[in-house]
């Protein structure tokens, strides 16, 4: 069989359109009274801002759009938000907990 690497590391940028794959579920857990992320054999505890970011990851919005929404909501510096956003999403993408939609924008 072909044993060469087929996959390349997904590198996220401001124009990427992230979305959670079917097997990664962001859910509010009433028993624990907190948001959780369910992933293969793992449970993650996102902080409040990560939850907001992930709720905006719909495969349509670009990361730059998500940043704009949050920058306006919190009247914060977009550059800072973008740095944090990219770090969070890249980390999830590296674990295959996040996909990016690659089709060109309409």
């Amino acid at each position: 069989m072909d044993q060469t690497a087929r996959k390349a590391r997904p590198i996220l940028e401001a124009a990427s359109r992230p979305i959670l794959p079917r097997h990664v579920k962001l859910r509010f857990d009433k028993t624990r009274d907190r948001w959780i992320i369910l992933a293969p054999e793992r449970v993650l505890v996102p902080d409040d801002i990560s939850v907001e970011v992930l709720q905006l990851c719909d495969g349509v919005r670009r990361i730059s759009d998500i940043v704009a929404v949050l920058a306006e909501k919190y009247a914060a510096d977009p550059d800072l938000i973008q740095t944090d956003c990219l770090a969070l999403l890249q980390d999830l993408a590296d674990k295959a907990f996040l996909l990016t939609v690659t089709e060109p924008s309409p």
Partner: protein
Amino acid sequence: MTDQTPPVADFQLVTRAGEEGGQRTTYGIPLAVLAELTHRCPLQCPYCSNPLEMEVASKELTTAEWCSVMDELAEIGVLQIHFSGGEPTVRKDLTELVRHATKVGLYSNLITSAVMLTKARLQDLADAGLSHVQISVQGAEDGLADRVGGFKNGHAKKLEAARWTREVGLPLTINAVMHRQNLHQLPQIIDLAVALDADRLEVANVQYYGWALKNREALIPSFAQVEETNRIVAEAQDRLAGVLDIDYVVPDYYAQRPKQCMGGWGRQFFNISPAGKVLPCHAAESITGMEFDSVRGNKSIRWIWDNSEAFNTYRGTGWMPEPCESCEFKEIDFGGCRCQAHALTGSAGNTDPACAKSPLHAEIFARAATEAAEGQDRFIYRNFSGGTAEDEVS
């Protein structure tokens, strides 16, 4: 099932709504349950973590019993269920069980040797809401892999099933249980996981209890092998960042500190055996003298988790003797593995000898090195008749 490596989840997750969170929380709501549907398995891995005395098919919980167990799990706040065994696909009702898990909101993982899977069955499982498949491999090529698993053509079947898993759109983890006789194939196993488009690879060194303890002489790696493995894993983790997530379980006979077994006894996880016994860990039945409650009794799972002697005996840190009692790491590793302490010291209440502070550590380390050097490679295969030596089957 293969050697289990529970994920280390955040301590906040065991805290109930309204309670004060913090690392000191001894236990709260269990996160995940390992559902061992059966001990039947076509493979005969010499390191199998099932107990030496396995449960026969006639004792297994029925479909209805498992469904009511899942209702209870969901109600008490369990988030994930790992369908395991033995070989869970031996159960004809697996798809039905997965569908029920989905219905009650449990995230489901299938932990399988994969030799009995077909593409149609995988599609059915995916349609029933299965979220993830973990397939074990015993080596990087047929000859060795099939010898370790004691099953002809098993390796080829696994590769086929791994491809189907991806074709039906399910994420894949490859689980490789490593020991002296297959560690040299680790680089090829890493390549294989990439080629199979797995997201994750678990490189799990054998843990020595149950069948693996019986086979320790044939499995224990040398210290040099372990150092080489550390190097290979570190290099691959770096090279494959973002391509393959590699989880690594160090062989703890050669470690300085023991692993945090099960995230702490009775703290985050538990097991349900094929006949319905509720166990703090998959090897807990190896602790002689310990009694376990069953889902077939008149107690709820919640009651068993909160109150049973099996869970409370080694929960938290209060039970600990020295050197653990006064140790700064006691809330990090919770004193290591109770089953290993029992197997190696005769008492589950002792410090795990994998810890350098255990008085038995030096002896265990030396014995491991001696056994590795002797190179006795003959396996005793796992089966329902107490094991069969390799040369008796070939």
